[in-house]
């Protein structure tokens, strides 16, 4: 790998041991991919570190104690608990304490404690063409495909990228790897984000790590695209897709493929959408004790819509309704009275956390000597949450559109 003089200084430890360590990891990664050079990144979205995984918070604490500071704007990923209202969701107090400690560590290091999977809804909007380093597949795919910023499927190394402002120019930072590989023809009316999620889940399972190019999607909303991307990156490893006319680097269908011819057209009709949702459905009983909305975290407008659906109603006594969002949307929901409506109905507007990464995981429960699953049956509007919650939380799953989810939260029963 060719390094600039400044990068060599970082690697040689002339700017401190932490940057040298970070640089050495980034060079190893670059070499594994035959990377030729490093690029300067201008933004990072990093894993917060989870108290459920031993040593992660301690490691950041050590770095912070040595004066480690991020060099680029850095947001951070969801954590296993809601720090604002931990008692409402019965979050274990030791986990809450550990994550309050993490928050102060992040403050020291210059990391913004967004605890979000969708940082681009909260002011972190890197311009098209810029190099960034992001973890969280739902964010990665949105950055690449909708905003046109360039990121790999990064993981823990975002920390090292943020500490140095560098990342090896490999993978999806190279234009040749961003070319379309599959043509997808959507021949169905997509009415809700869940329909987009089903399309993404179906296509992701076919294309794997490919780069799908969609035709037949018109005027999608931000929430639709969040769901489409999250699902593509769950059933597959898709890091970028093209929506000609929307994806900044892709003005036309032809330009998505550059010199490459698409091998075949994947058709998505209403049949594939319903089949995909049915395949995710594992529950034998229609009674739902957990309704989870907000994967990816709901925007304030989605919170508004749920509040409107819930207004004047009561969540069933045997059912728990959580709506996952972030602090910025929460603040606005508070201001607009949406939170009050949801609270009065018996629903919970949850921040910071995500069920499948939370204290509700089977392995987290086992560690505390508790038997899982915590919830028997989860109804959600998100194929991503459905897929992961089934294996990590051990609950049976039903996926349906948001209005049906809210109805079931009120009646306690999904009307299939």
């Amino acid at each position: 790998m060719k390094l600039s003089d400044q990068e060599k200084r970082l690697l040689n430890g002339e700017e401190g041991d932490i940057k040298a360590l970070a640089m050495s990891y980034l060079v190893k990664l670059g070499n594994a991919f035959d990377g030729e050079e490093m690029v300067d990144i201008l933004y990072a979205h990093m894993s917060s570190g989870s108290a459920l995984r031993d040593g992660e918070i301690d490691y950041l604490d050590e770095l912070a104690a040595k004066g480690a500071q991020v060099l680029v704007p850095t947001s951070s990923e969801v954590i296993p608990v809601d720090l604002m209202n931990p008692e409402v969701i019965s979050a274990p107090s030791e986990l809450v304490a550990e994550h309050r400690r993490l928050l102060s560590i992040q403050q020291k290091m210059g990391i913004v404690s967004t605890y979000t999977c969708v940082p681009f809804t909260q002011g972190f909007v890197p311009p098209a063409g810029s190099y960034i380093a992001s973890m969280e597949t739902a964010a990665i795919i949105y950055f690449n495909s909708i905003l046109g910023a360039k990121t790999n499927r990064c993981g823990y190394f975002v920390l090292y990228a943020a500490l140095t402002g560098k990342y090896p120019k490999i993978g999806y930072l190279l234009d040749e790897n961003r070319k379309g590989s599959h043509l997808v023809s959507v021949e169905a009316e997509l009415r809700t984000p869940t329909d987009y999620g089903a399309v993404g889940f179906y296509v992701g399972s076919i294309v794997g790590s490919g780069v799908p190019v969609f035709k037949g999607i018109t005027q999608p909303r931000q929430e639709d695209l969040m769901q489409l991307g999250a699902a593509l990156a769950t059933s597959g490893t898709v890091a970028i897709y093209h929506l000609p006319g929307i994806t900044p680097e892709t003005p036309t269908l032809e330009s998505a493929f550059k010199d490459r011819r698409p091998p075949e057209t994947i058709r998505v009709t209403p049949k594939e959408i319903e089949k995909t949702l049915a395949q995710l459905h594992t529950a034998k009983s229609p009674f739902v004790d957990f309704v989870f909305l907000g994967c990816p975290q709901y925007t304030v407008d989605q919170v508004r819509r749920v509040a409107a659906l819930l207004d004047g109603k009561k969540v069933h006594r045997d059912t728990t309704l959580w709506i996952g969002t972030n602090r910025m949307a929460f603040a606005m929901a508070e201001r607009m009275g949406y939170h009050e409506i949801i609270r009065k109905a018996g629903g919970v507007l949850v921040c910071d956390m995500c069920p499948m990464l939370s204290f509700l995981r089977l392995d987290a429960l086992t560690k505390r000597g508790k038997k899982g699953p915590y919830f028997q049956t989860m109804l959600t509007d998100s194929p991503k949450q459905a897929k992961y919650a089934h294996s990590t939380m051990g609950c049976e799953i039903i996926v349906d559109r948001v209005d049906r989810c809210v109805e079931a939260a009120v009646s306690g029963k999904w009307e299939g």
Partner: protein
Amino acid sequence: MNHAVHIQCKGILPGKAKGRALVMRDPISFQGEIDEEGTIVVWGHPHAGESVAGKVLIYPEAKGSSGGCMMLRLLAKRGKKPAAIVNTRNLDPNLVEGAILADVPMVCFPKENVYDIFSSGDLVEVNGDTGVLTKIEE
């Protein structure tokens, strides 16, 4: 007499490791599909309930959540990491990050169809420096 089968791959992360092969035809995600003990927890997966600990994992490519690299790092801390990883179709930076942190040798893109040659349970050696994948006859 040496009946070992050697297959040339691309060396990705250095180091030598030996272990029993776990051959999977489909991509797998370390986050959400493998638990903290290294057990495959995908319901209905052909290898559900089996452990990746100490195994040479042979599979097409990583998939799913970018939390996978953290899970691999955690498995290493808990002594449950795989011995080595062989990816046949694609190389995912996220997985490579995890393998660097977990110090797991890695090779990819074997020159032959390993799914015809290797079965789960075979004794396998991976040399991440030379990229050679060896099936050891017992």
